[in-house]
């Protein structure tokens, strides 16, 4: 027999030749030193290769260091959830027993919400003003340039179908007028002096924004103190620790602040969320007041009506029309002159105090905001059913439009640590991104699109998680759409029930479900764009 090829010898060494062939190779090896040596080398190589492959697999060099971190993150998440639950359960249970003086500290009460919101807003306004200004300037310019470059590139590449690009251009043209904005930013005080007239929209950010002159457009301001002494012909949109209108705002005022004071004039409506709202003596609001605030004092004149949600409201001035109040305490002083009727929803009838000289044209109606268990109301069940049906319909549409995405997202949920992480980030980061993009005005369409996707994803997240729950309960691969629907129905029913759990547990579940589902969705959306 001639010497065997290395290939054949390799197969022989691996035991991959048939018995007859093996026999003849064996007899050849007995007489051929060269082939015998080669066979020995091949065996040696096999051992080395097996060892090396084993090491490669079991000790991968690029093993993500994330593994231990993932555990850490999981423990951290668990700890946060535990602390939150520990806080939530007693606080929520106690919320009705807390003395009202400290109830503003309770994060589950309306007052607490406002307090947290306004404190956060004030913090943002005082600390982020400079940053926001820089970011806005930078991103605004960058977005404009980027959009133009991308559109130009796309226009070149898409010789066949340029319609979408033209649409983009149209969008850009639509957006461009918005860039007729005057930016005024500074570290400390940003002043529009008395002599100055600005015909455009004014965007101002700084520690103290003072408008002493005239702005013919809107004013958008982020600052610790936003003070209008001059005239704003458009609307005022302010996020600040203190918003003060001493001059005149001819449009509406939208403000989030710790304190909002109106010693001057607002010709339109005032929409306010603040710790404290003061319509001071001599101050006038020509339109309506919509307030979700801790304390509201109306000493001036409100020409139309007021809708007040909050802790305590004091009316010591004129209100042209109705006053609707939901909160803890409503005080009508001797100076109160109310043209319409007063409807107060308070925990106890004694919490509406009406001074003897107070004038109320339409009388005072007091409703007791006793918390009746929602489970006793049939309406609650009806809305639950509607919610379930809506989610099921959405699931049906989802299944019909993007079955693969839904199915893969459901599977991807299994690696839950990652989904949770991504989802959490998406849940938090997207709104921040949207706010920044919206603040640049040029990025407004982008912000709308992102916000839309975000809202959709929040809703779909529930469906994805419901799919997983249903799937694991049915223990099947859900090949048919009918199986999927059944799984969805089961999952959604369970989730709807779980979200109703009291003491904040249901809410906590809801947030977790949103994180999980959103994470899986975004992961799969991202993955579906990769070739694998």
């Amino acid at each position, binding site marked *: 027999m001639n010497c065997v090829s290395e*290939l054949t*010898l*390799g197969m022989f060494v691996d035991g991959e030749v048939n018995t007859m062939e093996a026999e003849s190779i064996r007899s050849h090896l007995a007489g051929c030193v060269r082939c015998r040596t080669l066979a020995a080398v091949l065996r040696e190589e096999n051992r080395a290769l097996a060892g090396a492959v084993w090491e490669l697999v079991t000790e991968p060099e*690029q*093993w993500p260091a994330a*593994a231990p971190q993932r555990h850490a993150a999981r423990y951290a998440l668990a700890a946060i959830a535990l602390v939150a639950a520990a806080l939530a359960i007693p606080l929520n249970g106690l919320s009705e027993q807390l003395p009202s003086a400290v109830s503003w500290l309770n994060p589950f009460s309306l007052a607490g919400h406002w307090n947290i919101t306004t404190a956060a807003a004030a913090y943002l306004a005082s600390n982020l003003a400079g940053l926001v200004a820089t970011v806005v300037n930078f991103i605004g310019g960058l977005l404009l340039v980027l959009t133009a470059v991308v559109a130009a590139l796309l226009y070149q590449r898409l010789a066949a179908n340029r319609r979408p690009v033209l649409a983009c251009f149209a969008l850009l043209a639509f957006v461009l007028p918005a860039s007729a904005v005057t930016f005024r930013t500074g570290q400390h005080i940003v002043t529009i002096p008395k002599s100055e007239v600005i015909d455009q929209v004014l965007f101002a950010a700084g520690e103290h924004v003072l408008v002493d002159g005239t702005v013919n457009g809107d004013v958008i301001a982020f600052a610790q103190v936003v003070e209008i002494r001059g005239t704003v012909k458009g609307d005022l949109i302010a996020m600040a620790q203190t918003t003060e209108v001493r001059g005149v705002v001819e449009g509406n005022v939208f403000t989030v602040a710790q304190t909002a004071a109106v010693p001057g004039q607002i010709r339109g409506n005032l929409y306010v969320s603040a710790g404290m709202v003061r319509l001071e003596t001599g101050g006038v609001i020509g339109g309506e007041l919509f307030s979700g605030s801790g304390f509201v004092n109306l000493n001036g004149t409100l020409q139309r009506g007021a809708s007040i949600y909050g802790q305590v409201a004091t009316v010591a001035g004129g209100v042209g029309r109705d006053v609707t109040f939901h909160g803890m305490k409503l005080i009508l002083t001797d100076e109160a002159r109310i043209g319409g009727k007063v409807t107060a929803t308070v925990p106890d009838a004694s919490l509406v105090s009406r001074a003897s000289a107070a004038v109320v044209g339409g009388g005072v109606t007091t409703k007791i905001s006793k918390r009746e268990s929602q489970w006793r109301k049939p309406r609650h069940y009806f809305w639950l059913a509607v919610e379930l049906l809506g989610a099921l319909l959405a699931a049906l549409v989802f299944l019909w439009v993007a079955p693969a995405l839904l199915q893969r997202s459901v599977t*991807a949920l*299994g690696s839950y640590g*990652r989904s949770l992480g991504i989802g959490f980030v998406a849940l938090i980061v997207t709104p921040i991104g949207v706010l920044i993009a919206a603040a640049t005005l040029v990025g407004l369409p982008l912000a709308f699109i992102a916000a839309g996707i975000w809202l959709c994803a929040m809703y779909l997240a529930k469906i994805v998680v419901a799919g997983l729950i249903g799937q694991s309960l049915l223990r099947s691969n859900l090949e048919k759409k009918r199986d999927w629907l059944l799984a969805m129905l089961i999952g959604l029913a369970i989730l709807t029930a779980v979200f109703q759990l009291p003491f904040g547990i249901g809410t906590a579940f809801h947030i977790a479900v949103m994180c999980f589902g959103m994470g899986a969705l975004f992961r799969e959306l991202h993955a579906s764009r990769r070739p*694998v």
Partner: protein
Amino acid sequence: MPATGHTERGSADLAEIYREFARPVYGLCLQMLGSKEAAQDAAGEVFARLPRALGSYDTTLPMANWLYRVASNYCLDLLRMRRREERYLADEPVEALPVASPEPSPLANLEDAEQRKALRSAIAGLPDKHRVPLVLHYFNGLDYDAIGREMGLKRGHVGTLLFRARQELRRVLSGPSEGVKP
């Protein structure tokens, strides 16, 4: 229900399995797929599918072998999808192969850690078509027939691929002086 035993121990078992095998399963996926990202995703997917896959687990076999097989099968599915157009798994003509000389092989004499590391990186650097059968053979312990079935190849072709992989490794390890590609 036959699988009750597993399902009851279910979640505890799964965590245990994950702790023990997450790393090698990732490593296996890395060697099969050749990219860190794809391997992370694939390993995640393997564990995500595990609860259901456990139903088909034969308890008489070691868990490791079964799990590695599940992982490599999943990676092969991915490779098939990825390379459907490229037809890399299709047969290529088997040339007449030279009779080798029984020189000392650079693969067989790995004396120090440095050399072993060099071999490992040489394997990691092989093209998919050589690295995948190598992993299936030396790690999963599959014979040529099984590899052929998994990769959709004739057994002879599997032998050729393994042979070429070995030659390529020798070429890489014997250094640049002899590194003339045929």
